[in-house]
């Protein structure tokens, strides 16, 4: 059972996951998860592979709706609004909850067009506005200086780390409240990883970030809070420092000390 730490920060909750279960057909991937994620902090999801980290993350912006015959039980609230509410459109949810994927996936378009994609599909065409958003987003994702002279070039010509930062820029161009990241550094070299990690530090000033990582050093470096999942169940959720130095659950301790996996 999750144990709440008494001296938690005062940031209010933005994402409230209540008794949430998820099924791929008959196969249950998540079991009764309860989790409240605070605003403008970095929350890391860790756990062995196949434990349901991605499933939980993708439930937050309903990306798993795409899977045939998937099903859920329980609620997820963002700013006290149920994301499965029929009144709420998936499209507007995804604009509020941006996502960065494990494998960087820039569109086969120019750098500029990649960043403004979300605006274009929302019907915004004012050139000045778009230019402004491009500059702001690329600066926020620490890519501006590297690409400002070749915005019209293909995004596919960037390096792996640059592509991933472009995807971050694309996600924050929509001005989301929450940014979901699914192992954003797993395909990157250490230098690019360090860049993204410092970027996450910057971004949390303005955004709530939920990050999945299989790298415990990374979790301890970037996150304020960490949730440990095991076999679809939330085992422990606490401030990162506490969880890593003083885990309450035996399974957590076994995992972070590398005793199983």
């Amino acid at each position, binding site marked *: 059972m999750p144990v709440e730490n008494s001296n938690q920060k005062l940031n209010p909750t933005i994402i409230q996951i209540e008794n949430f279960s998820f099924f791929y057909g008959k196969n249950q991937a998540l079991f009764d998860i309860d989790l409240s994620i605070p605003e403008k902090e970095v929350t890391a999801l860790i756990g062995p592979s196949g434990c349901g980290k991605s499933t939980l993350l993708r439930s937050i*912006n309903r*990306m798993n709706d*795409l899977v*045939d015959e998937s099903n859920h039980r329980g609620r997820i609230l963002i700013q006290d609004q149920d994301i499965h509410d029929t009144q709420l459109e998936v*499209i*507007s949810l*995804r*604009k509020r909850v*941006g*996502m960065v*994927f494990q*494998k960087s*996936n*820039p*569109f*086969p*378009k*120019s*750098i500029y*067009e990649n960043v403004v*994609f*979300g605006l*274009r*599909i*929302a019907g915004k065409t004012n050139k000045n506005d778009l230019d402004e958003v491009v500059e702001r987003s690329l600066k926020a994702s620490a890519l501006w200086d590297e690409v400002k002279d070749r915005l*019209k*070039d*293909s*995004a*596919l*010509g960037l390096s792996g780390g640059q592509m991933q930062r472009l*995807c971050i820029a*694309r*996600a924050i161009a*929509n001005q989301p409240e929450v940014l979901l990241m699914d192992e954003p550094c797993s395909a990157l070299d250490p230098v690019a990883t360090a860049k993204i990690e410092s970027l996450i530090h910057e971004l949390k000033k303005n955004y709530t970030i939920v990050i999945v990582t299989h790298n415990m050093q990374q979790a301890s470096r970037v996150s304020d809070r960490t949730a440990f999942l095991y076999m679809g169940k939330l085992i422990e959720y606490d401030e990162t420092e506490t969880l890593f130095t003083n885990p309450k659950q035996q399974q957590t301790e076994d995992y972070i000390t590398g005793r199983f996996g």
Partner: protein
Amino acid sequence: MRLKKQKNSQASGEPMVWMTAMGLSMGVLMILGLLALIFYKGLEVFWPKHVAEIHLKSEDGNGERLLGEIILQRDRSSHKSSNENDEGSPLRETQIFMGNKEVLGQAFRFVEQDKIKKTSYPESVIKLERREYGNAMGFPQAIYQADQELIPLKKTELFEKTLHQLVKTYNARWEEIRHIEKDQIGKINYEMEELELEKKQLEEQNTAAKNAQAKNRLQELESSQKTLQEKYQKLADQAKKLREAQQGAQLEILLANGQSHKIEVSQILEYYYPNQLSTWGRVGMFFHKIWLFLSQEPREANTEGGVFPAFFGTLVMTLLMTIVVVPFGVMAAIYLKEYAKQGPLVRTVRIAVNNLAGVPSIVFGVFGMGFFVYMVGGTIDQLFFSNKLPTPTFGTGGLLWASLTLALMTVPVVIVATEEALGAVSQNIREGALGCGASKWQMIQKIILPASAPGILTGAILAMARGAGEVAPLMLVGVVKLAPTLPINSTFPYIHLDQKFMHLGFHIYDLGFQSPDSEAAKPIVFATTLLLILLVLVLNLGAIILRERLRKKYASGKF
């Protein structure tokens, strides 16, 4: 234990490498051979050959003389039984094109090689291309003109100048006659028809209550009919006068057998002296003939003249088909791949679509005739062109129905190619688009379709290649041997979708199998085949260039 040193060639698969390579090279060789033959035969037609004068052997030493182009020389092995005199080397025979069909009875003749005494190439031979009876060849003698002295060949300069001038004026006059008869009178006929229709309608409508307005309109119609009638009469008179002026001048040529033959100069389209041409002159003539072939209308049951209407018809039909088939195929593929729930039903549909591509084309022709022509066309006629009935407008084969039939035939190709292209866009990219808040259609429209455009174009190319080369279904839904006008012309509404049209593929079939003089049609069959191949090639090349540009754009992301 002894190590097995022998390399097991069976296991390493080397024989199979050779086998497969052989299969490939056989295929390539066959294609190259076919293309080489068609290129050679197709272009040879236009090369101005020398005209040979051939003396045949005979007892009294005064044998027959022939004048003509040597078309081919071959072993006469197939007719050996008729020749007992020698058993060693096979007899060779020569095929000669002599022209002058109306005098000699036949334009081609075979001569046995050993009967030929002497072959020479006299400089003075003239070759005439005529409006009727094909080519004429002979030694020019003199020009006869009504009320004027004859000009003998000896006055070389004057002869040459007069002939040139005469041919030019006569051809210009033909052009004028054509313009009057076809364009101007054609237009008047069209207008008359329209007036007649309106009149018929008015009369039918108002039998009971003929109001003043209708009466007035009727009178108006009648008076404009009268003016049109007068105009028509004037034009017809004009044409008649011009036609009369076409008689008068004649060119006398001497045939090889010594017979003198007078040819109306108005019959001469072109003339040249084949044995006097320099190499460059020959090359120039070659390209000139190619141009005429491409730009002119056919003459004499299509065996002479050009193939422009057929070329144009093929082009228009193929483009129209492509315009129809690509959007339909792409839409169907998007539904099948992106929206339909993948299951047994969709799988069945997909198999059915794939099999549709293998249905013999004539089946589509029959379907096109039954469905498009009779059902759809018939209904359109009932609803919109009832005043013209029983003459059908859309209820008969035409450009539109032919294009739609071929579109139906080629739509599986586009669907399959598009589905493949759509499937090649990675799930990762799709999720990226959806994650940015795109709706499914936005994702398809903005990301997936541009990314799969090259693949879709591949489908369009395949469809075009198949459509342009198809003949069988077209014969049922609108292709004709000779169409009076082009499907796109200067009479309103400019694009005549209901009109019958000519097609290169059908032209080849018609010339090769239906022509009264198959020997004469043979060269033009090859030339037309070459043109059809080139047309398909150019269309495909255009699409391929477009695809490569899209691909580059896609790779560099500049769209």
